[in-house]
Each structure stands twice: as C-alpha cells, then as structure tokens.
C-alpha cells in the first residue's frame, strides 16, 4: 500500500509540476489542482497508513489511540483542502480577469517575444 500510494503521490506531483511550468494560465490552474491533490495525500500519508481504523470512536470508552489512525494529519488535510480549494478558485478568477484585460492567457499576461 505504502509504495503504491507513494508512487501515486509522485505521479500526481510530477504531473502537477509539469503543468505549473507551462505557459498557459489554465494549464497552471489544473497543475495547481493536481499538485494540491498530491500534497494533500502527502500530508495524509505523514500520519502513516491504516486500513479500517477511522478515527471515530466506536464507543466513548474505546479510546485506545492504537485502535485508530492518526487523526491529526486528517484534520490538517481537511483544513488544507478547504484552503487550496479557495485559492484554486481565486487563481481561476484572476486568470480569467487577466485573460479579459490583457487579452492573453499567457501566465505573464502577454505573449512572449519570439
């Protein structure tokens, strides 16, 4: 599991990095989304992987930490998810505005001089 997830994180990250290095702002937006997935999974993975141990107490008394996956990274990922969603949205709107005003969807707001 670990190796698969690690490879998946790597793949997502590589795709994201490739995209954020592209010249079109839409590519960058998609790249940030993918990179966001990768990083969220990465943060999640930092709590180590557990199968079948969601950090929800089965009963009030069953509060042995070893029974449950580490809840903290999950909480962090939740916060990060929301934030990266918000910022992706913002980036998208800014890229639209830039495209509207500058007339180009190049990330620099103008076509590069050839």
């Amino acid at each position, binding site marked *: 599991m670990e190796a698969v997830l690690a490879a998946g994180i790597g793949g997502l990250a590589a795709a994201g990095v490739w995209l954020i290095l592209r010249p079109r702002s839409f590519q960058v937006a998609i790249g940030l989304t993918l990179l966001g997935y990768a990083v*969220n999974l990465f943060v999640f993975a*930092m709590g180590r992987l557990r199968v079948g141990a969601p950090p929800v107490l089965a009963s009030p008394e069953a509060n042995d930490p070893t029974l449950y996956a580490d809840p903290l990274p999950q909480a962090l990922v939740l916060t990060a998810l929301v934030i990266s969603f918000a910022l992706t949205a913002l980036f998208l709107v800014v890229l639209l505005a830039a495209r509207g005003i500058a007339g180009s969807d190049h*990330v*620099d707001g103008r076509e590069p001089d050839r």
Partner: protein
Amino acid sequence: MSLPADHLIVAPVVLPLAVSGALLLLDERRHALKAGVSVATALALLAIAVWLLLAAAAAPGALAYRLGDWPAPYGIVLVVDRLSAGMLVLASVLGLCALVYALSRWNRAGPRFHALFLLLLMGVNGAFLTGDLFNLFVFFEVMLAASYGLVLHGSGAARIRAGLAYIAVNLVASLFFLIGVSLVYANTGTLSMADLARRLPLLGPAERSLFEVGAAFLGVTFLIKSSLWPLGFWLPPAYAAASAPAAAILSILSKVGVYVVVRLSLLLFGAESGASAGFGAQWLLAGGIATLAFGTFGLLAARDLARAAGFAVMISSGTVLAALGSGSAAAVSGALFYLAGSTLAAATLFLLAEILQRGRDPAASATEAVFDDEDLDPFEDDDTVVALDIPAIVALLGAAYLVCALMLAGLPPLAGFIGKLAILSGLAGAAAPAGPVAASSWLLVGALLLSGLGTLIPLLRFGIFNFWVPLEGPSPALRTAEAAALAGLVAGCLALSLWGGPALAYAEATARWLASPAGYVDAVLRETAR
C-alpha cells in the same frame, strides 16, 4: 488566565475578524461609517499591541495564551514575547497609517476594502502570535488571501497581471509549507514550536534527516515570502503594481516571512539544539547577501519609485536574513531594529510613490485604480484636499521623502543608520574584539555598505526628479488623509531614530531572549490546570 486582560493576547486576531464580519453586514455605500469603524479598530489594535509590548517587556519570559483551554503541546497556543509584541506594534502602526491613507479614495476603488484590510491585519497578527506550526500556515493563508485581494484591489491590467504571478508563486509556496509541516509532524509527532524545540535534540538520525528535509521545505516557503534571492523575484512587480495603501501594508508581509525564519531558526537551531544546531545558517547568509546585491541592482535599475520601493523591501529582508545567518547575536539585535525602521520607510515610500506618480504623470494607468461606474467618482470631492500652498506640499512631501531615503540608505542620523551600524558593529565584533571575524562577515559588511550606496544613488535620482525638476501642469494634490498617513509613518521613523537607544536596547533584549530558547519553551509548555 485569570485576568481578563490576558485575553487581550488574542484580541489582535479576534478584533479585526469580528469587526470585518460586522462590516460585511453593512451596506457598501456607507463609506463614512465603515471608515470610522475601521480606523477605530486599527487604533484599538495599535493600543493593544503597545499594551502587549509593555507587558512582554515587563514579563520575565513570554506570555502564553492557550486557545480552547487545551494544554500546551496539544492545543494551539498564542505566544507574546518581545519579538512577537514588537512585530505586532510594527504591523499595527503600518496598518493604521495605510488604512488612513486609503481613506482618501482607495477604499472606494473596490468592494469590501475595509473588511479585506482588517482581515489582512488579522492574518499578520495571527502569524506573529501563534506558537503552532500548522496554525502558522493557516494565518499565512489568511494573510496571503487578503493580500491577493489587496494586490488586486482597484483592478487594472498591470495589477491583475502581477497578481497572477504573485498568487501562483505563493500557492506553490503554500504547498511547500504543507509538505514541510507534515514532514515535521511525521518525524517529531508535534506541531507546537515549543514542543518541537524540546523534542528536537532527542530525535534519532533518520528522523532527524527527514525532519531537516521538512525544515528545508519550510525554509523555502518562508524565504519565498521574505523574498530571498533567488526566490523573491515576484515581490517587486507585485508590490509595485498594488495600490499604494496595499503596498504599504504588504511591506509588513514579507517581514512575516523574515519573522518566522528568525523565530524558528533561533528556537530550533540555536546552539543548544544538538546535531541540528546552526541548520541552514550558511544558506541564509549567502542568500541574504545575494538578496542584498540583487535588491541593490534592482533598485539601481528601477524606472519608477514604486518598483524601487519593492526592491527596498527586498534589501531590507536580505539584510535581516543575512545578519541572522551570520550567527552573531549582536548583529541579530541590530537586524531586528533595522527591520522595524526599514519596513516603516519602505511603506512610506510606497505611499509617496503613488502621490508623486499622480502628480508627475496623471495619465499613468499602471498604478491608477479602475473605479466603478456604479460608484461615485471618488476624485470629485476636492474638499478633503489639504489646504496648503504648493511649495508647502512639496516641502512636506520632500521632507517625508528625505526621511525615507535616509532610512533606507542607512544614512545618519536616522534609524536606518543606527540599525545598520548595530549590524555592522555586531558583525565586526566591535564590542568584543577577541575572536576572529569570519570572511563571510566581512563580505556582509561590504555588501551592506555598498547596498547603502546603491540605495542612495537611485533614491537621489528619484528625489531630484520628483522634487527638483519643475513640474509642468498641476502639482500633486495632497489629501488630508494622505498627509495624516504620511505624517504618521514619518513620525514613526523619526521616533525610532530619536529613541534609538531604548529601541535598540529592546531589540538587544529580544535577541538575548531569542538566543536562549529554553525560556520560550518553558513559558509555553508550563503546565496549567485545565
């Protein structure tokens, strides 16, 4: 936690949050009310910050505030010590002045300016106060999100173009932050900075390696924010394109990055932290010097004042980071003092740049706002223009400019010089001539002096162009709010210069406090009954 006054520690975060929430409920058109409320809030923030500063200066250690009443390494803790209190005051002064400046017209250049502005202050304050690594991330994001709004405030092609790059770079930085935080957590099992400092010496070699990778990612993040070369190329265009009050308040933003680097590197990688001691110091030193050099080149090459101010911000960050990297406690104290002065001055320069640009080149679209057709034309109400004759306005602006230039170039007799001098004498070990001085320190000394000159030359050019070359056409109009904001910032610079002794003493006490992280750790982790 018994005294009600203790709750003031959280006020720098909660007050702007609540007020901005309330402001959002108000109708967009009630400008006067909103302006009044925001200024009152900014004033209150300043008062609170000063109170905290006094409290921190009086306290033997740090004041910790346990949010949610959870014990320390588990819950989030806000920490007021000399460093964070000082930064709070600085941010509040800048915030107040930038806000007042914005009242002249910028607050009407886009919707919900006041709320965004206060939320930016909230983010900045939170970042200064928090003692938790992930909470720091959150406040970074609050601050950055608001700064995105403010960079784009007023719209316009240049602003949006620069904003896109600014946002892209900072989004990547945020992702690095997450990677770093999670690596730190994965290998130490904690997020509390104080707890981290306690656990760090106990780490095994493999954990330590991975932790250091996390620290490297975190470092890259903060250095991006503090615009260290080669990570800071985004800063000058973004700040130059932002509206003047936004740029002024943004100049504290890059200092948040600097603050965190100072805080964490001294807390975690101080002399007592075992195998990781001094982690990254050479990088900081080298990067700081490179930033100084690059900022100076940029300043020399700058074609307009706002951009020059952007590079001045870079130089100021570079100076502080390099001083930190040099490892000299005396230089750190000088750097902290310098940080305050140079930030104030850079902010003033942003404001001045806009006023002067307006006078010089009324058609300049790059820094102009795009005002709404649905809004009243904010340029119409001329009754707020300062009732001074033109030479007096020019003299006033000239004096403000002179103060800025002297502060930034580090020329006597103002605080810029005092700060630089403190760094230099710290580096040269003038106070304790016993040990040898590293070659890199001499390099930094040289870089600092040359960058002073490199700052002076272009600022001289801009000053002469703006104040001495006779104007054709109407001269700059100065509105009351703008004059007040400028006066406030200049007064800040001058006060820092006049009371250089006490301020420097405070900085020195801060550096001493930072040099022994045990105090911080104790203050945060001290057990309290829940």
